[in-house]
């Protein structure tokens, strides 16, 4: 099976850059959460600035790719699928930024006994993102490999679900915490878990698109 963009090298390069932005944003998210939990406020605010720049770059790249696909009438048969795919991947970068932004705005008090829970949850969600980016690269360049990496996305997404549930159970069973404080902690666990759900959404689309391409 041929690469999706064939000889349209600029498009291929822009797509690769767009996926790099998503990976970078997920790495900055991990560092940001770690800085937040360790009380490294200045570094955390730097992470937020960095992720905001990345998100803007991702938006610009997505728009450039979309414009090029339409104005140059490239891959008309797969254009709709590629557009939807890009928009769903962009949601991942947006979610990464959203999490850091919410931490910065709401400055939740996270008791030390939950720090590991939040870090591990973020790690699993980021793994789901890494795998889905790798699946997307396969879809664009070497579709035969896609099935194997899609399976990994589903695995990490279900791990994120499991860890999030464990964390929330622990929060709601901790004596001495106000109910409102428990809600706040639940909210952040939910939003980190949502990152893996967004990776799964992309994986579901990729599964169908890759079948369509193989026909």
């Amino acid at each position, binding site marked *: 099976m041929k690469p999706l963009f064939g000889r349209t090298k600029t498009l291929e390069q822009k797509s690769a850059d767009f996926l790099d932005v998503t990976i970078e944003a997920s790495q900055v998210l991990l560092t940001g959460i770690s800085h937040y939990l360790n009380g490294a406020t200045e570094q955390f605010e730097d992470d937020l600035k960095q992720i905001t720049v990345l998100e803007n770059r991702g938006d610009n790249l997505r728009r450039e790719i979309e414009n090029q696909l339409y104005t140059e009438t490239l891959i008309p048969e797969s254009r709709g699928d590629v557009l939807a795919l890009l928009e769903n991947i962009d949601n991942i970068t947006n979610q990464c930024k959203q999490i850091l932004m919410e931490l910065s705005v709401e400055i939740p008090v996270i008791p030390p006994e939950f720090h590991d829970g939040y870090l591990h949850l973020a790690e699993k969600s980021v793994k789901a993102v890494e795998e889905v980016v790798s699946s997307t690269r396969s879809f664009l360049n070497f579709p035969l490999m896609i099935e194997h990496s899609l399976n990994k996305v589903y695995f990490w997404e279900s791990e994120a679900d499991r860890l999030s*549930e464990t964390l*929330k*159970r622990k929060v*709601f*069973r901790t004596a001495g915490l*106000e*109910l*409102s404080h*428990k*809600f706040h902690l*639940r909210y952040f666990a939910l939003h980190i878990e949502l990152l893996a759900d967004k990776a799964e959404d992309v994986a579901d689309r990729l*599964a*169908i698109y890759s*079948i*369509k391409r193989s*026909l």
Partner: protein
Amino acid sequence: MASIFDEDLALTKICGEFIDLTDDVNLVFCEAIKQYMCCQMNEYDNYIDQIRNLESKGDVIRRQTESRLYTEKLIPESRGDLLGLIETTDDIIDETKNTALLFSVEIPDIPLELRNEFVSLAKICTEAVNEVLVAFRIFFKSPESVKNLIQPVYDKEKLADKQAAKIKRLAFLDKNLPLSQKMHLRYLAHHVDCIADRAEDLADRLSIAAIKQTIKA
């Protein structure tokens, strides 16, 4: 009228299994809420395990069906509609599982006077789901009958909204409850009510898919 699946009995069978499974999740959920409100936590946890297993099985069936729809080039003209219907049905399962899990994870303290109100809300939502599943089953055999079958879904969804609003009002009028507990009760009522919203989403899709099938015929 002929069914869109006339030439593919295997696919009809898989879709039937998926509807059965959704029906099971729906019934188990209602029983689970009754047990929670009676503080029968062991029973409740057993039901949660059942819902988890059914949901995983549902995901497998959904992906198999989606893949089959494409790889075997089945009913291409109705493929998109059927995919949408299956995904929207899966949303009902997900919403039901997530709501059941909320009670298990957050062990909310429900005041005695609100327990029956929550059971009523769960029953109404279960009825909404049941009605839409009946319509989905009929869709395969007789799409022209769908129109009459989905009205009860909309009626139940409205009833669920009313019942959820009643719970929220009662919670917020209770002078003895702290604000955080009122918010917790509102959150739970909202999530149970969302199950009926997902049933409504499926009814909307079914309605359009059925019209398309009727026109084709």
